[in-house]
C-alpha cells in the first residue's frame, strides 16, 4: 500500500482533485501490518509510533504515560514531549488493550492540542458578540446568573449536558456538585447518544451496568457475532485484534449484521444486510432458531436465568421466513447464521450503534445478551458479550453518575443507596434528587425549549451538530431567555451560540483516569501546560462550587478535594462495594504498566478479567442498580415488581415483539436514511478535523447510495445531490457503494466550524439536519439510524465523492 487503494481508486479526493501525493501509512491502511496467531495464544505486540515532521525519536525529551481518547478502545500510549509541546505518540507495548498498536485517530489526532485556534481565554457575550475576558468576570457572570435562578426558580431550572471525553475525576466532581450541591436532576452526557443503550441493556439483563466480557476473549473465542458494530472503523485496534485471529490458525467464524458492506462484513461467513430498523425481528428469529434446534443449554438456563418461558413465547412467532420478509434478507442466511451461533463453542457477541441508535434499541440489545445466556456462554474465556461504548470515557459517565444515574451504579429507587451517598457526601438524603429516573439529554433540551430550564451548561460536546433535528436544537440554544455556558477547547458551533465560553484544558494537559469499553482503567498524566489560561474541567467545577458556596450539612465545603488524585481517592470510596469497585486501584498502581480492569479490590488486586465468571449476576434486590423496565414502553418496575420476579442472582431474559420504525420510507420520502462514523473522524471533528492527515483523508461529507438506486435517480459517482427529510435538507456528493438498496448513509461528523463557523447558511451538510427527534423508550438514546428521506441530483460531479475508499464507503466498482 502506498499511494492508493489496491483497487486503484484514490484514497481521497479533496475538492474533486485527485490527490495522489504522500499518504501517511495508517491513512492508506488503517489497520497496519498483521501479526496472526492461533486460537488461545496471546496477542503479539506491534508498536506504532508517529512523530511530527522533523522530530527524530532521539529528540524526544520525555515520554509521558497516557491512553488514547479518540474512541471507546482507550489504547495505552505515551505522549512524546519536546520543548513543552506534544510532538507525537507511541503505543504502549505493555498495555493489555493494544499491545503497542494505534489506529489512525490515535496516531494523528493529538495534533489538535497544538492547533492555533485553541480557546485560550474565557469569552462572554457583549453586545451580541463573544469577547475575551478573564476568569473572574466570566465565572462571576455564571455565578450571579446561577444565584438568581436558584433563588427565583430553584435547582430544577439548571441543566448540565456533558461529554464522553472528560476524565473520571471531572465527571465525579460534576456529579457531586450538581446532585449534592445544586440539587438538580437534569444532568446527562452526550454518552446518551452513544452508549446509553449498552448501559440500559446490561441493567435489564443483569440488573447492573458493567461490561460482562473482556477484550482478551477475542483470543479464545471460536465465533464472533457483530451486530450493528462496524468495529473496523469505530475501534480500529480491536479490529486489528480480530483480524490477527481471522488470519491465524483456527480462525473464529464471523457473523455480521449491517446494512452496509463494512470491512467486517467483507470478512464474514454470513453477512446479514438487514433493512435499518429491523434488528429485533432478526434477533428474535435467531433466538427462535436456537430454541427450535435445541442449540441451548437448558440446564444452565434453569440454574442461572429467569424468564425463559416468556422469551420462548415471544420469539416463537418469528420464523426465519417471517424475519427474512421484515429484514429484507434470505431465510437460509438467517438459518445459516443461527447454526453458526448455535454450534459455537465459545461465542463472543458485540453490539454498537447499529443497535443502540436504531429502532427498539434496548429491546434488541437485550436479545444479544439473551443469545449468549441461552447458550450459557457468559463469564467464560472466549464466551461473553461486549455491549460496546461509543466514546473513550463513556464508561466513566455511567459509573460516576454524570449521565444522570447515581454514582457507583446505585439505584435511585433504593433508599439505602441514597443514604450511602448522603453519608459519603455528608448531606441530607433529600438534598440528592432521587424522585424519578434521570432526566435524559433530549428531555433537558425540551425543558430548555419550553423555558423551565434557564441555565444550560454544556461541557466538552457539540449538540449544535450532534443532536437530532439541528434546526430545532440551534433555535433552542439561541433562545434569548436561555443562559448558555459552554466549556470546551475550541470555538465549536455550540460555543458560537453561548453566552459564556470557558476554555478547558484537555487530554495531555491535565492528569486523570478513564475507563474503556472493557472496564480497563488507564492513567493519563499531564504532559504539557494548557494553552493560555485554559483550565482542567475539574478545576472549573471546583471554582464554581466554591463561588456558589456549596456546603455539606455541617457547613464544611462540599467538595473536599483539589487535586485529581484526591478526586480519584474520593471516587474509590464511593465505588467501594459496588460492581464498579475501584478501591484496589491507585495512581501509583496504574503507573508504569498496563491498564487494569475493574472491579479491582483487596481480593482482586490485579483487577477482574470478566464479570459473572461464577454464573451469578448482580440481581439481588438490595444490591441491583435498577429494577428494570418494560422493553416496549419503558415503564419502570418498582421494588415490589422486582421482588416478585425474584431473580436473586440469576440473569433476566426479557423479550419484546418487533414493531416497525415510526418513520419508514414512503412515497414522498422513499429512502431510509442511516448515519454513522468513518474511520478517520470522531464526533463532530472538533479534534480530528484539525489533524492534517485525518482531515485530508475524509475532508467533506457524502452520501452512500446503492448503484441501482443511483441509476433510478440518474446519479453517478461524485454527483451533487440534495437529501431532504421532513425536517431539513443537506447537499453532498454521492458515493456509489455496496450498501443495501433503499438505504442511504451519511456520516454525522460534518458541521460548519470549518466552512462558515455557525450554521448551514451556505451549504447544509450536517447529517443531523435530517434526523428525527425520537428516542428509545428504555435507554432514551436518540434514533439516528432510521429516517425517511428523498434524494435528487442537483449538479454533475467533478470527480469521485470525498469519501474514503479504504472502508465501508469504498466504491462498489472497486469490489
Amino acid at each position: 500500500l502506498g499511494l492508493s487503494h489496491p483497487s486503484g481508486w484514490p484514497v481521497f479526493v479533496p475538492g474533486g482533485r485527485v490527490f495522489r501525493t504522500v499518504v501517511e501509512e495508517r491513512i492508506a491502511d488503517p489497520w497496519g501490518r498483521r501479526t496472526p496467531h492461533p486460537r488461545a495464544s496471546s496477542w503479539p505486540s506491534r508498536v506504532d509510533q508517529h512523530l511530527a515532521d522533523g522530530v527524530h525519536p532521539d529528540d524526544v525529551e520525555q515520554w509521558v504515560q497516557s491512553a488514547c481518547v479518540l474512541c471507546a478502545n482507550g489504547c495505552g500510549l505515551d505522549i512524546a514531549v519536546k520543548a513543552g509541546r506534544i510532538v507525537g505518540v507511541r503505543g504502549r507495548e505493555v498495555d493489555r488493550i493494544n499491545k503497542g498498536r494505534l489506529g489512525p485517530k490515535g496516531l494523528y489526532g493529538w495534533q489538535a492540542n497544538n492547533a492555533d485556534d485553541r480557546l485560550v481565554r474565557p469569552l462572554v457575550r457583549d453586545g451580541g458578540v463573544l469577547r475575551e475576558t478573564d476568569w473572574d468576570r466570566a465565572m462571576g457572570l455564571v455565578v450571579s446568573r446561577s444565584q438568581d435562578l436558584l433563588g427565583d426558580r430553584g435547582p430544577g431550572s439548571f441543566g448540565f449536558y456533558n461529554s464522553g471525553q472528560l476524565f473520571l475525576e471531572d465527571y465525579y466532581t460534576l456529579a457531586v456538585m450538581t446532585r449534592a450541591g445544586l440539587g438538580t436532576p437534569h444532568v446527562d452526557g452526550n454518552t446518551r447518544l452513544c452508549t446509553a443503550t449498552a448501559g440500559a441493556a446490561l441493567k435489564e439483563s443483569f440488573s447492573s451496568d458493567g461490561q460482562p466480557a473482556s477484550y482478551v476473549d477475542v483470543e479464545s473465542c471460536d465465533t464472533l457475532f457483530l451486530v450493528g458494530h462496524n468495529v473496523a472503523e469505530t475501534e480500529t485496534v480491536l479490529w486489528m485484534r480480530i483480524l490477527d485471529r481471522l488470519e491465524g490458525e483456527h480462525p473464529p467464524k464471523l457473523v455480521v449484521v449491517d446494512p452496509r458492506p463494512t470491512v467486517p462484513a467483507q470478512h464474514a461467513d454470513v453477512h446479514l444486510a438487514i433493512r435499518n430498523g429491523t434488528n429485533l425481528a432478526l434477533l428474535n428469529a435467531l433466538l427462535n432458531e436456537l430454541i427450535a434446534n435445541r442449540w441451548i443449554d437448558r440446564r444452565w438456563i434453569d440454574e442461572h436465568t429467569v424468564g425463559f418461558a416468556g422469551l420462548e413465547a415471544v420469539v416463537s412467532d418469528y420464523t426465519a421466513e417471517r424475519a427474512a420478509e421484515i429484514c429484507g434478507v434470505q431465510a437460509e442466511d438467517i438459518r445459516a447464521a443461527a447454526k453458526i451461533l448455535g454450534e459455537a463453542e465459545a461465542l463472543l457477541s458485540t453490539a454498537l450503534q447499529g443497535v443502540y441508535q436504531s429502532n427498539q434499541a434496548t429491546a434488541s440489545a437485550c436479545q444479544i445478551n439473551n443469545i449468549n445466556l441461552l447458550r450459557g456462554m457468559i463469564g467464560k474465556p472466549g464466551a461473553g458479550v461486549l455491549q460496546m461504548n461509543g466514546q473513550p470515557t463513556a464508561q466513566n459517565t455511567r459509573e460516576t453518575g454524570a449521565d444522570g444515574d447515581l454514582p457507583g451504579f446505585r439505584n435511585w429507587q433504593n433508599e439505602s443507596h441514597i443514604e450511602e451517598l448522603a453519608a459519603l457526601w455528608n448531606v441530607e438524603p433529600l438534598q440528592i434528587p432521587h424522585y424519578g429516573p434521570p432526566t435524559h439529554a433530549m428531555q433537558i433540551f425540551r425543558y430548555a425549549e419550553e423555558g423551565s430550564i434557564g441555565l444550560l451548561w454544556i461541557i466538552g460536546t457539540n449538540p449544535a451538530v450532534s443532536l437530532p433535528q439541528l434546526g430545532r436544537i440551534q433555535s433552542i440554544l439561541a433562545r434569548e431567555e436561555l443562559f448558555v455556558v459552554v466549556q470546551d477547547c475550541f470555538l465549536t458551533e455550540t460555543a458560537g451560540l453561548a453566552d459564556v465560553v470557558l476554555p478547558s484544558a484537555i487530554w495531555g494537559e491535565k492528569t486523570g483516569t478513564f475507563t474503556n469499553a472493557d472496564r480497563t482503567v488507564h492513567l493519563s498524566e499531564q504532559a504539557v501546560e494548557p494553552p493560555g489560561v485554559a483550565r482542567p474541567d475539574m478545576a472549573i467545577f471546583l471554582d464554581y462550587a466554591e463561588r456558589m458556596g456549596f456546603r455539606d450539612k455541617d457547613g464544611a465545603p462540599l467538595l473536599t478535594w483539589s487535586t485529581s488524585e484526591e478526586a480519584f481517592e474520593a471516587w474509590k470510596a464511593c465505588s467501594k462495594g459496588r460492581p464498579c469497585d475501584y478501591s484496589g486501584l491507585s495512581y501509583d498502581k496504574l503507573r508504569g504498566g498496563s491498564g487494569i480492569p475493574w472491579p479491582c479490590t483487596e481480593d482482586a488486586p490485579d483487577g477482574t478479567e470478566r464479570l459473572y465468571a461464577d454464573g451469578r449476576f448482580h440481581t439481588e434486590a438490595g444490591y441491583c442498580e435498577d429494577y428494570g423496565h418494560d422493553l416496549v414502553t419503558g415503564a419502570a418496575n418498582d421494588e415490589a415488581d422486582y421482588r416478585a420476579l425474584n431473580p436473586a442472582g440469576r440473569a433476566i431474559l426479557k423479550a419484546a415483539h418487533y414493531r416497525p420504525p415510526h418513520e419508514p420510507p414512503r412515497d414522498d420520502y422513499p429512502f431510509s436514511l442511516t448515519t454513522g462514523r468513518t474511520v478517520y473522524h470522531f464526533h463532530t471533528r472538533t479534534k480530528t478535523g484539525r489533524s492534517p492527515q485525518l482531515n485530508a483523508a475524509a475532508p467533506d461529507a457524502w452520501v452512500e447510495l446503492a448503484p441501482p438506486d443511483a441509476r433510478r435517480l440518474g446519479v453517478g459517482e461524485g454527483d451533487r445531490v440534495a437529501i431532504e427529510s421532513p425536517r431539513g435538507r443537506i447537499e453532498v456528493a454521492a458515493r456509489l457503494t455496496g450498501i443495501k438498496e433503499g438505504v442511504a448513509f451519511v456520516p454525522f461528523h460534518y458541521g460548519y466550524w470549518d466552512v462558515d463557523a455557525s450554521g448551514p447558511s451556505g451549504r447544509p451538510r450536517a447529517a443531523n439536519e435530517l434526523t428525527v427527534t425520537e428516542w428509545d423508550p428504555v435507554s432514551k438514546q436518540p434514533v439516528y439510524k432510521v429516517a425517511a428521506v428523498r434524494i435528487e441530483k442537483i449538479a454533475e460531479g467533478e470527480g469521485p465523492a470525498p469519501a474514503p475508499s479504504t472502508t465501508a464507503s469504498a466504491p462498489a466498482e472497486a469490489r
Partner: protein
Amino acid sequence: MSRLGTAIRRSHYVEAELARTFAGVAERHADEPDVFHLCTMLGEQSKEHAARLLPFAQRYRGLEAGASATVAHPTPVETGPGSRLLADLSHLFVLAQECWIDGTVVRQAALAKRDKELVSTISACLEETSTQVRWLQTRIKTTAPQALTIE
C-alpha cells in the same frame, strides 16, 4: 340480559374511552415525541381491547352501559410548562386504573363461570393495562417536579 354481560359492556366502554383519550393526548402533546408515540400505540392497544371485549358483551347479553364513571377531564388551573401534560397524564392514569378494576371484575366472574375464552382474553388485556398504568406512573413521576416546582 345478564349482569356479567353488563359488566363486560362497561369494560368495553371504558377501554374505548381510554383509547380515545390516549389518541387525544398524543395529538395534544405531539411536541413530546415519547408521549406522542407511546400514547398513539397504547391508544391502539386499548381500542383493540374494546374490540375484543365486544363479542363477549353480546354473548352475555349485557345492557348498554353509560359513559365512564370517572370524573370529567379536569381543566388545569396552572398554565406553566408541563402542567397541561401532567393533567392529561393523570387523567389517563385514572381511566387506565378504571379499566384495570373493571377488567378485574370481569375476570373474577369469568373464572367463576369457567369461561376459558373470556378468562384468556381479559387476562391478556389486563396484563397490557397494567403496563399502561406503570408507564403512565413513570411518565408522571418525570413530569411532576418540573411542572409544579419551577416558577
